[in-house]
């Protein structure tokens, strides 16, 4: 299109420069295209292939782990080919862009969408105002769900933080066995809630009274002359039996965090208190607890967040039968059992609303740290 260049700069003609730029552009465009095509093909292959699982597995790992790296490498090279001023403006987005795209697709858009769904009917076809929310707060069934969640939060937070604190103070005094003892109590933290449910399901197992018990708790019951208890059926205790599993899982976590804080209490402070004649209980309540107060609050908040969203234990053990339903489990059932997307979404929004103060304080902390 352009005329043959007549001028030349030194030895290099404009044609040469144009050729070189074109070549670079072609290379830097073709490589990404090939990369995308290759990834897309492997994606189709993984989705539709009837090949052996091991082959798919290898492709999956190579693409999943390597592919992302190649994408960054390729887009970065692409940007490096552009003029300097352009490059410096574009580069940050090469680094931060993919993360923002993922966050928008996987969290921002869905969150907005779920809020909309919560104002719609079962099949998300018509707007129904606040009726899903009125349902949650008036239906007797749902009130039990809310009651259970509150029960879970109060008992789990209370017991895990309380027990964690007591154990943290105790293990501080046993010398060289301390870390072994901490490990043993921390171990359940590594176990999935599903695994823990099986472990405790076995503890709770009940056989008819005339047969030998294989569940430890009912063996104790029977030895003491009582009847075996059906832990999951008895409405007076089934919620507590489920809650105990979560307490077992999380106490170790609380204990380890609190223990670090207890070790941070200045020795001089403890000694001063003891010299003033305080006994160990007063030292505990009047010195240790006030000093580690902020740690206790942090731990309690963390446990609160985990308990609020409890799902697995209830889903595996009872799936909400006999008045043991909790919010996250009911949400799952609304979605996948009753097919009511409006109510399910309203329950998800409820979880978000309860977490809003924590989200707010996280952002506020960030602002303060920026200033400070």
């Amino acid at each position, binding site marked *: 299109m352009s005329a043959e260049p007549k001028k030349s700069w030194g030895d290099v003609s404009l044609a040469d420069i144009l050729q070189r730029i074109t070549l670079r552009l072609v290379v830097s465009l073709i490589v990404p295209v090939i990369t995308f095509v290759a990834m897309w093909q492997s994606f189709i292959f993984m989705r539709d292939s009837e090949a052996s699982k091991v082959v798919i597995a290898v492709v999956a790992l190579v693409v999943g782990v390597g592919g992302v790296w190649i994408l960054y490498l390729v887009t970065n090279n692409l940007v490096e080919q552009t003029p300097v001023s352009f490059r410096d403006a574009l580069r940050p987005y090469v*680094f931060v862009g993919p*993360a923002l795209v993922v*966050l928008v697709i996987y969290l921002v858009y869905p969150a907005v969408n779920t809020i909309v769904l919560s104002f719609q009917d079962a099949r998300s076809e018509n707007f129904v105002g606040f009726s899903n929310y009125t349902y949650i707060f008036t239906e007797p069934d749902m009130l039990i769900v809310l009651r259970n969640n509150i029960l879970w939060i109060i008992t789990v937070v209370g017991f895990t933080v309380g027990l964690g604190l007591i154990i943290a103070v105790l293990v501080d005094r046993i010398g060289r066995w301390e870390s072994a003892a901490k490990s043993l*109590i921390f171990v359940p933290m590594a176990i*999935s809630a599903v695994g823990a449910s099986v472990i405790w399901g*076995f503890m709770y197992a009940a056989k008819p009274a005339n047969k030998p018990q294989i569940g*430890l708790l009912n063996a104790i019951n029977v030895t003491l002359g009582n009847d075996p208890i059906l832990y999951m059926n008895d409405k007076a205790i089934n919620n507590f039996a489920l809650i105990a599993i979560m307490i077992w899982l999380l106490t170790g976590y609380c204990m380890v965090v609190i223990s670090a804080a207890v070790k941070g209490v200045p020795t001089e402070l403890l000694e001063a208190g003891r010299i003033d004649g305080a006994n160990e209980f007063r030292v505990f309540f009047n010195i240790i607890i006030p000093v580690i107060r902020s740690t206790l609050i942090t731990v309690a908040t963390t446990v609160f967040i985990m308990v609020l969203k409890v799902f697995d234990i209830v889903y595996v053990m009872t799936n909400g039968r006999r008045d043991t339903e909790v919010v*996250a489990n009911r949400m799952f059932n609304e979605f996948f059992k009753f097919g009511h997307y409006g109510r399910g979404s309203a329950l998800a929004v409820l979880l978000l609303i309860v977490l809003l103060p924590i989200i707010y304080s996280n952002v506020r902390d960030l602002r303060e740290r920026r200033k400070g």
Partner: protein
Amino acid sequence: MSVSLQTESGVQRSTVQAVLSAAPVRIVVLLLCFLWSLPTIGLLISSIRPATDINSTGWWTLFGGGQPFNFTLQNYEAVLSAEGMANAFLNSLLVTIPSVVIPITVAAFAAYAFAWMEFPGRDFFFAGVVMLMGVPLHMALIPIMRIYTSIDLNGTFLGIWLAHTGFGLPLAIYLLYGYISTIPKEIMESAHIDGASPFTAFTQLVLPLSVPVIASFAIFQFLWVWNDLLVALVFLGTDNPDAFIVTSKLKELVGSKGQNWEVLTAGAFITMIVPLFIFFALQRYFVRGMMAGSVKG
């Protein structure tokens, strides 16, 4: 003078007190450790007993001396092959490894940009990341499932990797940013003066320096994904046994073999073995990872 004497005697008294109180405290702690381990020990012992023994006598009777201990690995054989736990174990590895590596990669690039690059909207986007850290993933399930249905991603590994990437990303960016932003400015500047491009500085300098925080997050995310049930049920489905990971497989066994404790005990232990190995092999990182993850909403 008198003050220092008092201090000495005070110290002495508290040492005496410590020794005196040590014995009962030790006993209490020992008892607690015993109680805490008991449920897991019962599961382990039962998983290596024959089915007839498990279902007729309690595992603790072995310690009374009355019961013979008939060791067997048959429960494990049965649950791994006949019940498909081996397949589920493979699936768990396939789901978990990319679900850990992809978010770390994406987050590391983003954290580096947030920490060391100037661009419009930086503070706004970072505040957004911190906010999203507290948003429960429950808010995302149905919309993402609908997107997946429309592009045929439901029930695929790719689908669940990306979902775990999305859900783990805010925490990963937050943690990595906290670490990468504390790298001394002089180091970053000297890399620039040496002619390193930002990409080279990132791969050659920032990533190697960030290994400790990456390890902490990796362990947290690995356990999170390995132990997850909800995300797996939603995106891999409840009705396709071939795609079950260990947790959804174990849940299915609870439903179908609820009274067959020989299946459940062995199955449960198989789901626990990798996390327990990581716990005992990398205890220091494990605890750090758990602490790091505690800011997640």
